[in-house]
């Protein structure tokens, strides 16, 4: 199991042909209190770099871009019901959606944990 990170502050946990996507702890800290999420429904094709989800905090709405392309298998209903999970457990219970990877080579453009940490420190 490998976790990758995007410059848009999403994480991608690869499990075989599938991947779970969410926002990082850095991202939730920047957003502040999350009060609403809109997630892609199962069956939807998402494209790397294109809008896949919406997250609203008390102060603003933000788009979440798909860090990799693929078909959405499942959205996290627990997060829809309790959006604060994005703040309290962003890299665990607060995951956004699971997808079937369309092109595993897209993962090569993402960062590992160390590279992502350096990236955040430079922000």
């Amino acid at each position: 199991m490998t976790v990758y990170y995007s410059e848009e502050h999403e994480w991608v946990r690869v499990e075989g042909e599938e991947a779970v996507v969410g926002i990082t702890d850095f991202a939730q800290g920047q957003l502040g209190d999350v009060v609403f999420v809109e997630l892609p429904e199962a069956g939807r094709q998402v494209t790397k770099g294109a809008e896949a989800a919406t997250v609203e905090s008390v102060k603003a709405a933000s788009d979440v871009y798909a860090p990799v392309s693929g078909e959405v298998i499942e959205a996290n209903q627990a997060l829809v019901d309790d959006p604060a999970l994005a703040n309290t457990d962003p890299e665990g219970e607060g995951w956004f959606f699971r997808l079937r990877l369309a092109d595993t080579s897209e993962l090569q453009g993402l960062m590992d944990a160390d590279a992502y940490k350096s990236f955040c420190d430079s922000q």
Partner: protein
Amino acid sequence: VSDADPKPLPLDAWHRGRGARMVPFAGYAMPIQYEGIMAEHRWTRESAGLFDVSHMGQLVVAGPDAEKGLESLLPADLAILKEGRLRYSLLLADDGGIVDDLMATRRGDHFYVVVNGATKEGDIAYMRCKLSEGAVLDHMKEQALLALQGRKAVEALSRLVPGVEALGFMTGGAFAIGGVTAWISRSGYTGEDGFEISVPGAKVAEVAELLAAQPEVKPIGLGARDSLRLEAGLPLYGHDLDTDTTPVEADLAFAISKRRRAEGGFAGWQRIARELEQGPIRRRVGLSVEGRQPVREGAMVVDAEGNEVGKVTSGGFSPMLEAPIAMAYVPAASAEPGTAVTLAQRGKLFQAKVVPMPFVPHRYHRKGAA
């Protein structure tokens, strides 16, 4: 005013030392939040929050024509305003548009006027142009302003400033806090009981430190200030009010005093009198939005055919109601509480209902009330 080069306020280092996230606002670097908007919002409602509002313009209007001069620009009855009492009022343009909203206090031989930070330079130029020679306006640039808001504000402040608990809502007086001369009024922008405290900028860090050391008090950022005032139904200038908006449209007719309604004699009176008589064509209302997704400033109010008939001027998520709320301008025929309205934001429709404001009841300390 450039966001690229925001000026520091006297409490800049104090905010940063307490972990505030600073953002450019009204040309100044200001704290948007400390621990988080939701927690700060609830803390203010349940205990007491300390706000730095030193960006606001603190003005003195003095001279033999001060009262008459101000009455030519504001619809308030200043003649009956007693010493130490303050009024919410509106700085008006000749066409009835709102130049700014403000607080005016009769204080000895002058009026103390507090205006919005983002508009203060324009207000000052406008007032100086309109006031006669017998009314002199001074901008107290060296003065800082704090607000202590929340149901426990009186407990915390009266410990440091004995006697302040005797002030009723919308009254003020001269006090000392930690040896620092202060003008303190029982007023604010959250819908809670609370105080606004004007002190010299050179001493404000000492005063903030004293206040924040009280167990009831935490510093609160601009983010929660905005969500608190929205729940309280209080308009924000530049968003819910502007020069294209009249006091009647903005549902602020309460700020037009009885005598002034009858006599007129202030900027914009002609249009305002007509709107008071015949009703405005649109009105500011509160909206309760279905679902959980906030509908924000800039969203459209649409009719059944999808035509834009109004606009959302403030919107967000209410931490106390745990639901989205908004302020919008709607056609007068749709302004009655209970009316269903449709909103459009980023290609998506939302159902909402006109509701009375405030969204969360005010808890002002009115003398004579229980």
